[in-house]
């Protein structure tokens, strides 16, 4: 068996394991084993790639020992840092962590392109096109993901934009494409300075693309950059004639694109709308809402739920910020013990990205079979005695159904207002992420339970326990 045969076999196994793993990840029952299968694929591919040392280019032979040491150090540092940070990160901070790791992948793809171009290793217009495109997309994904991470992590605040920003970005992209095109036409024979400027501009473009986008839209952007990195990896795989990179990169490229479209659809926005317009700034005051917000005690709300037959809970990111999901589940178990039918209703964009809320509830131990997607549960609100909104706002705002002037008009929402009684657990009277006033809070069947979500949950627990302690 030649080394090349072993390497190719390992890549074949890796490609199979990646696809099989992703397939298993598509159901909650098998998902855990899916990532483990894919993980083995990665281990096999990385181990096999050490066989590259047996067949190196003539020009690299004098440096082989140094290069092997460098590979070992880089692998150990990257693996060690990422493993530790990944074990440590809070579940609420998951979206920005995914952004960070994704940016690193984009950077690695751009690095491959840079070596190819700086070393004048690629010849032929197709290969050069792939190298240039992969480098451009990878560098954009690197700097863009870093900005996304910094914004979600609260390190960069606000959005900056100026009039004519889109024109600047548009011309920047044209310059990049022209420079790339020139490199291809010249057969790669361009100066080092030219290549350096190309990569610096590509990085700068990623920053300029991402800075004007607000935090609420960031998940869509992260998902888009995830798809971008996949494409860049696939293109560089072609340059290196590496089928594992080609297949894995393209699978992620298309899967990521679809995921981005699904997310944007759940938010009632198009991807171009997310990228090129500003959401928060468009939200102006849209007239007075009739009625008033009526406060209620946590204990009253809790006791009403204890005697209800059907309760639906609509959690939002505020729940996780208050770290109240454990107390909430304790309360839910108490209700279940009293034969109350409790279900969770998850809006597609609850949390900071689709599915994020499910992860946060799973962390608290909530079994996934009492958690329902919006389309599966929206009909049931009409039969619910009580609907509880915890830390959510825009996703339950009926203005999305009725008020055409509202910026969230047309977004699908959870029909909590159809329940007989609605309780909204909320810290204060503030507006949601979109900056829109919520009509639900003024509705006749809605009462506000003000306070920190965790404290409110403790009060609710105590109220029901005292009731039972007092002999039914």
């Amino acid at each position, binding site marked *: 068996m030649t080394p090349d045969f072993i390497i190719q076999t390992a890549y074949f196994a890796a490609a199979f394991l*990646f696809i099989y793993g*992703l397939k298993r*990840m*598509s159901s*909650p029952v098998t998902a*855990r084993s899916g*990532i483990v299968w*894919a993980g083995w694929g990665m281990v096999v591919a*990385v181990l096999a790639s*050490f066989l590259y*040392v047996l067949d*190196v280019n003539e020009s*690299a032979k004098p*440096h082989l020992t140094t*290069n*092997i040491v*460098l590979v070992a150090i*880089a*692998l150990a540092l*990257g693996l060690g840092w*990422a*493993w530790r940070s*990944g074990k440590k990160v809070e579940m609420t901070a*998951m979206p920005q*962590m*995914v952004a960070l*790791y994704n940016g*690193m*992948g984009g950077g*690695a*793809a751009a690095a*491959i392109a840079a070596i190819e171009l700086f*070393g004048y290793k690629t010849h032929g217009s197709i290969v050069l096109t792939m190298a240039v495109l992969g480098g451009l997309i990878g560098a954009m994904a690197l700097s863009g993901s870093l900005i996304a991470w910094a914004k979600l992590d609260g390190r960069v605040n606000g959005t900056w934009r100026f009039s004519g920003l889109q024109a600047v970005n548009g011309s920047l992209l044209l310059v990049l494409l022209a420079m790339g095109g020139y490199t291809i036409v010249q057969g790669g024979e361009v100066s080092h300075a030219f290549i350096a400027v190309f990569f610096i501009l590509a990085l700068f473009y990623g920053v300029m693309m991402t800075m004007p986008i607000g935090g609420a839209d960031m998940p869509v952007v992260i998902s888009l950059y*995830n798809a971008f*990195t996949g494409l860049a990896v*696939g293109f560089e795989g072609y340059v290196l*004639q*590496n089928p*594992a*990179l*080609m*297949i894995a990169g*393209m*699978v*992620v*490229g*298309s*899967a*990521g694109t*679809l995921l981005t479209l699904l*997310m944007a659809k759940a938010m009632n926005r198009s991807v171009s709308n997310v990228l090129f317009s500003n959401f928060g700034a468009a939200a102006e005051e849209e007239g007075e809402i009739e009625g008033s917000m009526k406060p209620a005690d946590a204990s009253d709300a809790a006791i009403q739920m204890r005697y209800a037959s059907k309760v639906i809970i609509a959690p939002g990111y505020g729940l996780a910020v208050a770290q109240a999901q454990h107390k909430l589940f304790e309360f839910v178990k108490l209700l279940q013990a009293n034969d109350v039918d409790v279900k969770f209703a998850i809006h597609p964009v609850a949390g900071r*990205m*689709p599915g*994020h809320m*499910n*992860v946060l509830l799973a*962390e608290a131990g909530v*079994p*996934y079979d009492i958690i329902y*997607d919006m389309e599966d549960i929206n009909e049931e609100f009409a039969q619910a005695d009580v609907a509880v909104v915890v830390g959510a706002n825009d996703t339950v705002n009926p203005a999305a159904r009725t008020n055409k002037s509202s910026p969230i008009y047309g977004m699908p929402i959870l029909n909590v207002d159809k329940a007989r009684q609605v309780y909204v657990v909320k810290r204060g009277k503030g507006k949601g992420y979109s900056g829109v006033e919520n009509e639900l809070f003024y509705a006749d069947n809605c009462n506000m339970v003000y306070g920190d979500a965790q404290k409110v949950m403790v009060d609710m627990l105590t109220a029901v326990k005292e009731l039972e302690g007092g002999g039914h």
Partner: protein
Amino acid sequence: MLTGFVALYIFMLAAFTGYEIIGRVPSILHTPLMSGSNFVHGIVVVGATWALINAATPLEQAIGFFGVLLGAGNAAGGYVVTERMLEMFKSSDKK
């Protein structure tokens, strides 16, 4: 070897595979899945390793080092966070 139409077929089939797998996923798994697909493109570390082993100048070595470092971070970090998230998904009949 993998040039021209062969490469094009590989890209096309891989793209459909990705589309089909994600299309049927329930939205409760979207976050872990995004993270899982993020892990899969961590395979780029293999390409970066090849590039660094074949580096002939200090500039190439520096960029290659950077590439392997980032690629390893992508793969390892992507695996750890995905595994942590998926490990938490439990059904109520396995109490």
